[in-house]
């Protein structure tokens, strides 16, 4: 574990959480201005990029030697998630049109973001493995696909729970719903493929190839279904959402970010250990570019 990179990630993440969550809480409930004079746009940019760069730093620092860091991340994630859920369930006012059902958005929207982030990580791991042939990335590919599949499944469940009282149906053939479902099945297919291939080299290469092909499909599915049918809520931006709604959404976003990172780190350790215990020993990958 590269301690310096990990600490840098923690610092960056703390900065992002400070600007995204604490500043808004202080402003809204304690009437304090602790934004250090930064405009809203700058704060949002720091929050988004700080979170994503911190994720990259955590993964880059990880060499599978230590179990403390992922556990710390998961604990911090649970804490942020609890804070966000407390604000979302008890503090934030109900929404004007949808009432109490809207509160599921505080987990639904961050789940959607990080399902996509996890799948993107899987695609990046696949490309890095094909170019470099390092089995560390194969473990990471398996971990991020699995975490992404869980998040996408949760996303479909939350969406159905919300859709029944709001739209009157459990499911609708909307672009985002349909894309999530297709994504879910495509990546479950990759996981199934991994189970059926015994040779570790073939398994790594084939699942990388299948991941890249499935990932490229995501935008095409999205646009094709969009032409076909559309009903989903339009995306909101900070300017269309009032401030009390920001706090639970953002706290939960960082909570899920940390949980996802911690789970990916733990799961890739499991994958790496499994690879190590497989016989015969790992063949060396020839790099052809």
């Amino acid at each position, binding site marked *: 574990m590269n301690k310096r990179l990990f600490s840098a990630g923690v610092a960056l993440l703390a900065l992002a959480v400070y600007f995204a969550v604490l500043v808004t809480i202080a402003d809204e409930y304690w009437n304090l201005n602790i934004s250090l004079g930064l405009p809203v746009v700058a704060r949002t940019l720091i929050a988004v990029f700080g979170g994503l760069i911190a994720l990259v730093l955590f993964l880059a620092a990880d060499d599978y030697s230590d179990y403390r860091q992922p556990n710390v991340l998961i604990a911090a994630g649970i804490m942020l998630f609890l804070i966000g859920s407390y604000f979302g369930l008890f503090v934030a006012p109900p929404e004007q049109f949808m009432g109490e059902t809207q509160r599921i958005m505080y987990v639904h929207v961050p789940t959607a973001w990080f399902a996509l982030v996890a799948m993107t990580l899987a695609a990046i791991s696949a490309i890095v493995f*094909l170019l470099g042939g390092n089995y560390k990335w194969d473990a990471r590919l398996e971990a991020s696909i699995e975490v992404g599949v869980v998040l996408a499944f949760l996303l479909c469940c939350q969406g159905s729970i919300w859709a029944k009282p709001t739209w009157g149906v459990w499911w609708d053939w909307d672009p985002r719903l*349909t894309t999530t479902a*297709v*994504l879910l*099945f*495509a990546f*479950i*297919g*990759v996981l*199934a*493929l991994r189970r*059926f*291939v015994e040779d570790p080299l*073939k398994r790594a*290469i*084939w699942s*990388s*190839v*299948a991941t*890249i*092909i*499935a990932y*490229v*499909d995501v935008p*095409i*599915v999205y*646009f*094709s*279904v969009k*032409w*076909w049918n559309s009903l989903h809520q339009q995306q909101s931006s900070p300017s269309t959402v009032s401030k009390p709604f920001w706090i639970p959404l953002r706290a939960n976003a960082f909570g899920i970010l940390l949980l996802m990172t911690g789970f990916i780190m733990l799961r890739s350790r499991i994958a790496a250990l499994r690879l190590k215990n497989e016989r015969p020993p790992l063949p060396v990958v*020839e790099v*052809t570019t």
Partner: protein
Amino acid sequence: MLIALRKEFLLQWRSRAQLVAVLVFGAAALLLFSFAIGPNAAALRQFSAGFLWLGLLLSSTLTLAESFHAEMENRALEGLLLLPTSPRVIYYGKAIANWIQLAIIGLSLVPVMVVLYDAGTTRILSLVFIILLGSAGLSAPGTLYAAMTAQIRSKQTLLPLLLFPLIVPALLASVKATSLVILGDPMSEGRSWIILLVAFDAIYWSLCGLLFGRVVDE
């Protein structure tokens, strides 16, 4: 490239009984779909394009799964890879052969659809064009996945599991375009679906060709 293609055609011609069997399977599937709807002529005509493409999709898993059968016997694929050509040539030869085979099946299912569902059309040329584009979309990723799954156990399960979610856009566009041809196209939407199909084909024919080399690498 031409030699690779010639080899595929020769193989296909020698196993033409298989093509006929798949054709009969597709026709039987079309017959069964009508039982799902019941003897409602208007509904059958409305859904005919979807049934045609589902029939072709189900038949395609059979032809694609079989397409690497010959290469797996006596480790012939390794022999092919030892030839002084790039594996891409093997891939494109295989993919074009699969494409033509799927297009033949698709075109032969059209008369079955016309008879069973009363879904006739005078725009034969556009229908042929759509079937060619749609089967190209099935064949490019299908051939790549068949190359993987042919080498492992339970290939019959895994190939559709990998392929079906992937070809959703191609299926959607083909069904929409076909049904616009059959039922009439007052808003002329057919064009945008055909553009989507062409884009899908272009992306997967290039991407899969690029990745195939890594898949068969020993």
